[in-house]
C-alpha cells in the first residue's frame, strides 16, 4: 500500500467501510426475522469501492447506482436510520418506504438513486453529466454498475455518446465476477471490462477494489481527468461479494475454497492490519470505531423498527408533480432539520455557452460562411 496517509483519513475510511459492513450484517439479520422483504442485495466485500470513491470526489458530484445500493448512500453521509427504515418499508425511509432496498435516493447528498433494471442507470449518468456541461458546472458523475451490466446495450450506447461528447463521467464497473449466478467469464467475449474502453477511444483503468487507498488514489486521478474536460473514464474495480447475489441466493455456483480465498483479501481487516503495522493508528483507535459504529447501527435498527408504516394515502402521491408543489427533503420531513437541497438556475438566468460540436463543423454549408467573391 502507498505510504504516508494521515491518521484521520485512514480512520475515516475504516469507519465508513465498517459502517456499511455492519449495516449490511444487521440488514441480513432483519431479513431473516422477516422485517425486510423483497429483493435485498448486500454489499459485503465491496465496501472499499464506495468508500474510496466517496473520499476522492466532491459532495457536489453526482452518484448513480444499480440496486446493490445501500453502501453508496451510507458512504456519502446519509442518515443511517432512514436508510434502514427504507429497507424496513417504513414511512420514515428516504423514499417513505416506496422504494425499498433497491431504490435508495438521497438527493441532499447527490445520490441519484438505485435502479433495478441491469444497466438501466448508465444512460442516466450521461444525462446528469450532460447537464453539468450544459450549465458549465465543475461537477462530475460517478456511475456504478456491475460486471454483467457491461453486456447490456445501454452500456455501449452510453459510452459511445459520453466519449464523443466528452461528458465528465467515471463509469465505475464493480467487477465481482458474477452476474447473479453466471460467471462473467462464461458469457463474455472480453471479461476484462476496462479493455472495452478502447472501443470508444476512452481512458480505461483497473484497480484492486479491495484496497480502499488504491481506489481513493485512482478515482482521484480519474476525477481530475474528467474535470479537466478530457472526457469520461471507464474504471474497473476488481472486487468480490462474500454473500449471494441477493438474500435468496445460496451461491452454490461458487466453491467454498474460492470464497475462503477471497475472504483473505477482505478490505476492512486489511486496512486495519496495515494501519497498525505501519503505525498510522492503534488497535485501540479501531476498537473505539467498532464500538461507535455498532451503536450507530443498533440505533438505526431500533429507529426503523419503531417507525410507522406509511399511510395508505401515500399510494396516490409522488406520481405527478402538481403546479407549485415543493419537493420536501427527506431529513426535513423525518428529522425536522433544515437541509441544503440542490437548486439549479432558472431558464431565464441560464446562459448556455457550450458547443457540442466545433463551430466550424456546425456552420459548414451555411450561407454567411461563404467566402466573399
Amino acid at each position, binding site marked *: 500500500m502507498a505510504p504516508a496517509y494521515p491518521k484521520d483519513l485512514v480512520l475515516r475510511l475504516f469507519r465508513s467501510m465498517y459502517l456499511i459492513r455492519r449495516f449490511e450484517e444487521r440488514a441480513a439479520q432483519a431479513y431473516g426475522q422477516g422485517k425486510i422483504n423483497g429483493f435485498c442485495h448486500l454489499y459485503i466485500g465491496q465496501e472499499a469501492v464506495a468508500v474510496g470513491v466517496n473520499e476522492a470526489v466532491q459532495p457536489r458530484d453526482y452518484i448513480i447506482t444499480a440496486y446493490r445500493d445501500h453502501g453508496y448512500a451510507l458512504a456519502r453521509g446519509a442518515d443511517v436510520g432512514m436508510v434502514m427504515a427504507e429497507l424496513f418499508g417504513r414511512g420514515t425511509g428516504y423514499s417513505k418506504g416506496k422504494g425499498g432496498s433497491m431504490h435508495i435516493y438521497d*438527493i441532499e447528498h447527490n445520490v441519484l438513486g438505485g435502479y433495478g433494471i441491469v444497466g438501466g442507470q448508465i444512460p442516466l449518468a450521461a444525462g446528469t453529466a450532460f447537464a453539468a456541461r450544459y450549465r458549465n458546472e465543475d461537477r462530475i458523475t460517478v456511475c456504478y454498475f456491475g460486471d454483467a451490466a457491461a453486456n447490456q446495450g445501454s452500456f455501449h450506447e452510453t459510452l459511445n*455518446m459520453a466519449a464523443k461528447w466528452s461528458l465528465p463521467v467515471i463509469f465505475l464497473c464493480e467487477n465481482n465476477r458474477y452476474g447473479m449466478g453466471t460467471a462473467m467469464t462464461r458469457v463474455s467475449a472480453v471479461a476484462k471490462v476496462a479493455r472495452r474502453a478502447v472501443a470508444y477511444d476512452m481512458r480505461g483503468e483497473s484497480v484492486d477494489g479491495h484496497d480502499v487507498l488504491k481506489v481513493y488514489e485512482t478515482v482521484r486521478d480519474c476525477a481530475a481527468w474528467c474535470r479537466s474536460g478530457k472526457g469520461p473514464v471507464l474504471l474497473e474495480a476488481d472486487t468480490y461479494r462474500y454473500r449471494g447475489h441477493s438474500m435468496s441466493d445460496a451461491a452454490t455456483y461458487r466453491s467454498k475454497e474460492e470464497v475462503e480465498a477471497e475472504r483473505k483479501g477482505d478490505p476492512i481487516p486489511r486496512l486495519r492490519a496495515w494501519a497498525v503495522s505501519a503505525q498510522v493508528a492503534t488497535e485501540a483507535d479501531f476498537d473505539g470505531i467498532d464500538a461507535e459504529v455498532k451503536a450507530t447501527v443498533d440505533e438505526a435498527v431500533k429507529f426503523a423498527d419503531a417507525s410507522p408504516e406509511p399511510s395508505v394515502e401515500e399510494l396516490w402521491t409522488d406520481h405527478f408533480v402538481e403546479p407549485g408543489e415543493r419537493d420536501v427533503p427527506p431529513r426535513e420531513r423525518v428529522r425536522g432539520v433544515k437541509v441544503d437541497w440542490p437548486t439549479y438556475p432558472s431558464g431565464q438566468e441560464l*446562459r*448556455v455557452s457550450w458547443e457540442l460540436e466545433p463551430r466550424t463543423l456546425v456552420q459548414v454549408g451555411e450561407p454567411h460562411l461563404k467566402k466573399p467573391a
Partner: protein
Amino acid sequence: MAEIAWREALNQALAEEMERDANVFLMGEEVARYDGAYKVSQGLLAKFGSARVVDTPISELGFAGLGVGAAMVGLRPVIEMMTWNFAVLAMDQIVHNAAKVRQMSGGQLRCPIVFRGPNGAGGRLAAQHSQSLEANYAHFPGLKVVAPSTPADAKGLLKASIRDDNPVVFLEAELLYGVKGDVPQGELVLPLGPASLKREGSDCTLITWSRMYYHAEEAARQLEAEGIHVDLLDLRTLKPLDEAAILASVRKTNRAVIVEEGWSFCGVGAQLVDLIQSQAFDALDAPVQRVTGLDVNRSYAAVLEHAAEVNPARIVAAVKHVLYREEG
C-alpha cells in the same frame, strides 16, 4: 390567426419555448443539421447552437436515458423519436425510469421531459413502421400522454408539455405534418387534460384523438347530410383523460362510437368503453361501438393496408348501427 401546417406549429412551439427557457433542449436523430427527419426542427440549430439542438447516434435507449438523467437534475429535454416504432427500443428508459423516478425517490426527484415524434401509419410502410402505440404508454402510471389533431392544439399542447414538470409522451402523426389549420398568433398554451368538443349534435357521441379526428370529421359531415348530428369529442390528451367531458356527452346523446387508429385488443378505446359502461350504463340506448385498425400486422400491399385501416365509411356505419338505422 394564420393558417400553418402541423410541422410549422410544432416548430413554433419548440422555438418559443427554447427562447423562453434556456433549460429546454432538443435531442434526437437528425434533428440538427438535417433539420429533422420531418423538418419539425427546421432552423433551430442555427438559432440555438449545437448544445441545445443535438444530433444523436442511432441509440434510442441511450439518448432517451440521457434525457431522463438531464431532467432529473433540472434541465427540460425534448427527446425526438424519429418514429414511435423506434421508441420501443427506448421503452425501458421511458417506463422504468422517467415514469417511476419521482415515486421511487419518494418525491425527491422530478422528471420534466417530453418524448415526441410521429405515431401511426405513414402510408405503405409495412409492419414495423406503421404502429399506433399510445395504448402502451397510457398503460403506465407516471406518464402523461398527449395526442392532438389540429395544428393549433399541437402547438398549444406541446408548449404546455414542455412546461409540465412531469414526463410527457407527445404523439404526433406522420400523415399530419403537412396538414394545415388556423393557429392563433401570439402566446398559445393549452392545458393538458381537457378534451375539445369539435362538433355538437345530439344523436351520438363520436370520441377520437390524433389523426382519426379527420376521419371522424369526414364521417360526421356525411352523417349530417342524412340528418344525423354527432358530438365530435377530440380527446387531445389520453392521460390525464377528460372523463367528465366523455360522460357528459354520452349522457346527452345516449350513444357512443370510439374511433382509434391502433389495434382493438387492449386499445385505448377498450378503456373508454369501460369508463362509459361503468359510469353511464343507465344512459346508454345501444352498446358502445369501436372502429379501430384491424388486429393484424400492417401489410405493404395497398389493398391489404387499406383493408386494415379505419376509414370514414366504417365510422358512418358504426354510428348508424348504434342508431339502429342500418340499411338492408
